[in-house]
């Protein structure tokens, strides 16, 4: 290995060499696309068509899984494949006849095809207990149990519109939790426990104090050493202090858990983007299969599927029927926790008499 010359700052390779010849020819010249069946698209260009088969992936995958995919790509897709912005695998086929055999072989290997149009696509998610120090829950496991439950909505296109789910394991929200149709968010519910013996060495006091959005952290001195204290009444367990100061962990097996959010969206289609809003403030961390969580999510999906109109995303549907009816229809309890009390809380108060009864 020492014989390899050391190169730096070379950047990623040019995408050109990964593009299927049909794509290269029709680059920027696509006329339209069509959905051939669940998970299969055709894009019609000036000189030819490219067929896309979209396969699920757990995203946390081994080289084994990837080699399975590259093998199939070589066999059926002239060696061309890509990943989507939601971590699905897309095979790019020049030959229409390869679609069915490819799908068959994927299916034999337990890999479903779908996620297009009016379906639930793959779940954008994060590290969880598999790799992150901040996690209040696991991510990959939650995705697995939720998608087991919602499988039919991935492989069929029977929803009113696209439904995007995201999972994040802490409030940093490495992903799309703040703007998803349904989001599952791991959270802590107790203030950081301060390790005063290590804090003075590990943490910069001013940065730590400044990290708190609620000004709950103040410098203090214990046994002559400068450390910090937390005003627990002001702490809402965001974990930002822990990010900058390892001596302030929040993890607490008894109180960590999961919350459910609804009605976010990113696209500018029809409405402007919308944030995800709180539906269920707390469900217990109940691994390995988080039954309370899967049930809650499935319920929301089903109520949406039954009540929304075509081309209505979850948030658009709720905006049409109003939040009181959303809580009614889903049977979710409305609590004081739903009332915003952060910075811009006032912008969520109803400033009119317009209401449903």
């Amino acid at each position: 290995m020492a014989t390899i010359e050391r190169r730096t700052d070379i950047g990623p390779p040019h995408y050109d060499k990964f593009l299927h010849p049909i794509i290269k020819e029709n680059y920027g010249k696509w006329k339209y696309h069509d959905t051939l069946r669940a998970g299969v698209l055709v894009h019609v260009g000036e000189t030819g068509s490219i067929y896309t088969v979209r396969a699920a992936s757990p995203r946390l995958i081994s080289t084994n899984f990837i080699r399975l995919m590259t093998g199939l790509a070589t066999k059926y897709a002239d060696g061309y494949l890509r990943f989507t912005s939601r971590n699905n695998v897309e095979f790019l086929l020049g030959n229409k006849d390869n679609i069915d055999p490819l799908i068959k072989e994927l299916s034999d290997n337990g890999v479903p095809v779908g996620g297009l149009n009016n379906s639930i696509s793959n779940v954008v998610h994060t590290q969880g207990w598999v790799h992150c120090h901040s996690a209040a829950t696991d991510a990959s496991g939650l995705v697995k149990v939720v998608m087991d439950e919602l499988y039919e909505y991935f492989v069929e296109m029977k929803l009113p519109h696209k439904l995007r789910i995201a999972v994040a394991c802490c409030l940093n929200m490495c992903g799309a939790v703040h703007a998803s149709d349904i989001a599952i968010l791991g959270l802590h519910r107790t203030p950081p426990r301060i390790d005063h013996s290590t804090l003075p060495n590990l943490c910069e006091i001013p940065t730590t104090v400044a990290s708190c959005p609620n000004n709950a952290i103040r410098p203090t001195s214990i046994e002559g050493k400068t450390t910090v204290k937390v005003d627990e009444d002001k702490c809402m367990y965001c974990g930002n202090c822990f990010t900058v100061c390892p001596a302030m962990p929040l993890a607490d097996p008894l109180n960590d858990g999961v919350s459910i959010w609804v009605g976010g969206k990113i696209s500018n289609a029809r409405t402007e983007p919308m944030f995800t809003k709180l539906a269920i403030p707390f469900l217990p961390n109940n691994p390995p299969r988080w039954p309370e969580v899967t049930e809650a999510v499935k319920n929301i999906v089903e109520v949406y599927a039954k009540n929304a109109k075509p081309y209505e995303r979850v948030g658009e549907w709720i905006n049409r029927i109003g939040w009181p009816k959303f809580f009614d229809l889903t049977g979710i309890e409305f609590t004081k926790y739903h009332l915003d009390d952060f910075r811009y809380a006032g912008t969520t108060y109803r400033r009119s008499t317009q209401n449903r009864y």
Partner: protein
Amino acid sequence: MSDELKTPLLDELEKGPWPSFITDLKSMADRPMVKDLLGQLEKSYRDKRGYWKHGGLVGIMGYGGGVIGRYSAIPEDFPGVSHFHTVRVNQPSGWFYTSEALNEIMDIWDEHGSGLTNMHGSTGDMVLLGTTTQELEPIFRELTAKDWDLGGSGSDLRTPSCCIGPARCENACYDTLALTYNITHKYQDELHRPMFNYKYKIKMSGCPNDCTAAMARSDMAIIGIWKDDIQIDQSAIAEYVDAGFNIQEYVIEKCPTKCITLEGKELKIDDSDCVKCVHCINVLPKALSPGKERGAAIALGGKAPIVDGALFATLIVPFIEIDEENGFEEVHDLLERIWEFWDEHGMNRERIGEFIERVTLKTFLEGIGVEPMPQQITQPRDNPYIFYEEYFEEETE
């Protein structure tokens, strides 16, 4: 390495129709790293908590980012994951690969790492998950030998990413792949050596569908858009009508500005009222496509909630030409003005979105030299607290 692997809880995740990452991981459980990862994860599932230490500075010589250091908090029990760092590898534009290229990377990773990955990380990188400090340099050398380089982490330009764009989408209003490639290469220094106030993410979507979630998840969202009239193929409209497609309900009534009408089989759009939401184009892909005068809208400051609450990006430049001919100069120019102003006046750990909130849009626009325009806002101020800058002085009367 610990004793025989028993994972009764994780085994529950092998059930059900969705592909199981546990089954996949177990297929590699002969490797000590994977075995102990599973072991520690099983313990997490039992104890309902993670077992990783906080961060840890490790890296590649000459690079300030690209590697996330990770150590087990209980290495005695799970020595295989006492080190378990991730390597972020900068993906190619649009996440396009050939089997060959991917296999080469897998070869490297099987040799020097756990064999586990995320394809891809949320920011866009290939995430190679789990290796030890001493393997970092060999991995780096072999990757670069095959033309791959590291992605971002820390307070730097993060790995830019883009939607599939013109490579396979008829909506693309500019070449997202080319611009992503160009920016990534031009700003290697900013990407690899964290010198900003905080992270800076760029995401490029070819049209307002925003398939990379740029408005929500990037400090700079470059979203394809057009200025002129939506192109209509009336014969294709007639086909939709003949096929019984309910244009009235699914298109006309859903248009946010109600600027579409159907007369017989002819669709008319009052483009002066169209807000380019793309809904009609989405629903009638065979008949409608974006106008011909294309470019991008640039919005800044999308981010997750820490610290002041989540932000969607704020529209700063409603339209900019994305011109490959002149090397995307206008974009570079704007980007550099933004960085300069943020560098000088931003605070430590202050994302550009939070920075704009703090200094206000007015000051920010002045700082980066962009004109105020009604397109940048949803409404003019409704409070009377105006700081007037022009006074009359006694003498000037």
